[in-house]
């Protein structure tokens, strides 16, 4: 039982990261119905930004308190990754809006290839290790279950961000504009909503969450490389689909589920096949429950 709880905690930490990335996929899909394949690489870029900020802090300033360093890493990574995502949307996706369905998918795949190779060219192909930022953990009284502080940081940051995000989407003008664009873009435009700006902001918000996820990933694993965007990206997309694409709570639930499945599968079955398990579950869920756990069923219009 203790082992199970321990693995579940690990799974939830991993799942929080997937959930944060998955929100970016699900929001973009909800509004413009496109799989943003480059999102995984935007996440990787965010992690690289955080890594460079961390190095700049230690090189130019020296001993900075860990909390401050993490905050700075997250904020700078969020801002710059948001800027990247805005530019990507502007250059590669907006010219193709209203074009045929596969065109933005292909530019997204092209952008994904270009981004990861751009990082490889500018930063070199090797893994980038950073010293551990947060050490230690606590053992829950009377058991052998340990929760590392970095896991707690991940879960706390995720909860805070999700709360802020929930507020943004449900209580602000921007969030209302986003939800209206999701329901009916043409009608929203007729009612005076700047659809292009709303879509841009959606991309920026998704990228900011991905940047935080990247920072947390870097903090948790202590290493990042230019290829690290693909697998977390695909798994986060799996999470978004699992939760029901287009649904924000669904993305979080899906992320947590994928994290749990991965951790528990590695613990009880075979660590080699953990990705196979995640993908198989995706296929099974889609075949028997095509709209995901919390998604709305697709209405076929004739």
């Amino acid at each position, binding site marked *: 039982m203790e082992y199970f709880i321990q693995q579940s905690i690990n799974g939830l930490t991993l799942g929080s990261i997937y959930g944060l990335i998955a929100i970016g996929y699900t929001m973009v*899909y909800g509004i413009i*119905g496109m*799989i943003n394949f480059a999102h995984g690489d935007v996440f990787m870029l965010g992690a*690289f*930004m955080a*890594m*460079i*900020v961390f*190095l*700049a802090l230690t*090189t130019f300033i020296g001993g900075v308190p860990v909390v401050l360093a993490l905050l700075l890493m997250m904020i700078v990574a969020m801002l*710059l990754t948001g*800027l*990247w995502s805005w*530019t990507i949307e502007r*250059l590669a996706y907006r*010219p*193709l809006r209203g*074009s*045929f*369905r*596969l*065109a933005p*998918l*292909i*530019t997204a*795949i*092209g*952008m*994904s*290839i*270009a*981004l990861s*190779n751009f990082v*490889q*060219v*500018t*930063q*070199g192909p090797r893994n*980038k*290790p*950073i*010293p551990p930022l947060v050490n230690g953990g606590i053992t829950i009284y009377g058991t052998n279950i340990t929760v590392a502080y970095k896991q707690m940081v991940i879960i706390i940051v995720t909860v805070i961000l999700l709360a802020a995000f929930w507020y943004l989407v449900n209580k602000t003008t921007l969030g209302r504009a986003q939800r209206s664009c999701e329901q009916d873009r043409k009608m929203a435009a007729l009612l005076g909503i700047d659809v292009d700006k709303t879509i841009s902001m959606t991309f920026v918000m998704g990228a900011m969450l991905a940047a935080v996820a990247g920072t947390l990933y870097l903090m948790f694993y202590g290493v990042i490389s230019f290829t690290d965007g*693909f697998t977390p990206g*695909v798994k986060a997309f*799996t999470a978004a*689909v699992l939760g029901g694409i287009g649904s924000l709570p669904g993305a979080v639930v899906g992320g947590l589920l994928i994290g749990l499945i991965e951790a528990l599968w590695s613990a009880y079955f*075979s660590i*080699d*096949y953990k*990705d*196979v398990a995640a*993908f*198989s579950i*995706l*296929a099974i869920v*889609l*075949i028997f429950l*095509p709209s995901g756990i919390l998604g709305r069923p697709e209405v*076929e219009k004739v």
Partner: protein
Amino acid sequence: MADIQKIEPDSVFVKAVKEGLLAGALAFGLFFLIVGFRTDQNIRNELVLNQRWGLLAIFVLVAGIGRFLLTAYITPWSEARSKNKRAAVEKEQSAFRKSFPKIGLGLLLIYPFLVILILWAYNGSIMGGLQGSLKYVDNFGIQILIYVMLAWGLNIVVGLAGLLDLGYVAFYAVGAYSYALLSTHFGLSFWLLLPMAGIFAALWGIMLGFPVLRLRGDYLAIVTLAFGEIIRLVLINWTVVTKGTFGISGIAKATLFGIPFTPGPTGFAALLGLPNSGVYYKIFLYYLILLLALLTAWVTIRLRRMPIGRAWEALREDEIACRSLGINTTTTKLTAFATGAMFGGFAGSFFAARQGFVSPESFVFLESAIILAIVVLGGMGSLVGIAIAAAVMIGGTELLRELEFLKRIFGPDFTPELYRMLLFGLAMIVVMVWKPRGFVGNREPSAFLHKRKMVSSEFTKEGHG
């Protein structure tokens, strides 16, 4: 700035200056960290920062000046050009465009000999011609034709039936591994295993296709991606059979009616009294893949005229109408999957015979993405367009390996190979934005009244299924 605005608020030049400055500022924001600093490992394996402000300045200047030129000159110019109206039916094609497939095919047929002749003349010796042509036949000819064949195979699924398949490389892998395993374990010959690899891949196509038939559009795409990844992960982890990441090496070469391409006395060169060279095998492989690719094209063209091909295209245009007209969508989709997969399997067994080595590294998602990109960039459904796209994208990236003179410009540390995939990705974006329908976006209808008229790309549809 305020003064300028008062005098001439709408001048293109002022607007261009503003946008240029903005683009420069944006580029500074984007590249400040990722280009301005480079992280490198020192001896103790710690990361250290190196500063590169000069490079950053170049990036910012290029972005700013580029944006300025774009707004000030290129956009007005292209706007003036594109005022011509678009017609639903394209105007009569020029004689060159009409006979382009035939010219292209003729060139492909004589390509290896053309290369040898040119290099023979250039080097002055037959050996120089033969050895020198190795690279051009192998890296350009065979490499491009493999992708042409794969893209034509995927075109049946994506271009004709409108089913978005992101895991096509799985069938390529099935073909390659069936040849590799059956050939190394049972010593079966290439010619026997080529059709078998196709059948295996087709069976896998049906197996994977069956559960996902109810899915549509992007869901189908993501499940096929998942299947592709699952097959790759199984190939990596099922080490007893596949030897995992080490791959299977020493796969038997293909033979020409039992004549092996070996240097010995029974080899091809000795039998024909030719000088010893590895190039004959390459030329043989070139014609083999050309034949396989042409088979794919021929089957595609013939199938389009058969009921099943028309059913595929009908499915792409409108699935609901299809169902209400009594077409069995299940079998239609499955045959599309199976046929596409079969050609992937053929290409896979060819790949294994050519490399003599297969490993899961060759079957990553990127390959699926490249093949799909070629299909879409070429204009879905157009065989000629796809061949052009494959030649441009694959040939272009292969060409980057050859650009030695760039080292003289940028110094000896400059390796053009590193930029291959970066440029490939950027080219995908640029081509798509420039021509969203691909190189050959118009479509030749398979059923028509009186006269075959080309359908302009503005009016073609793509599938949702």
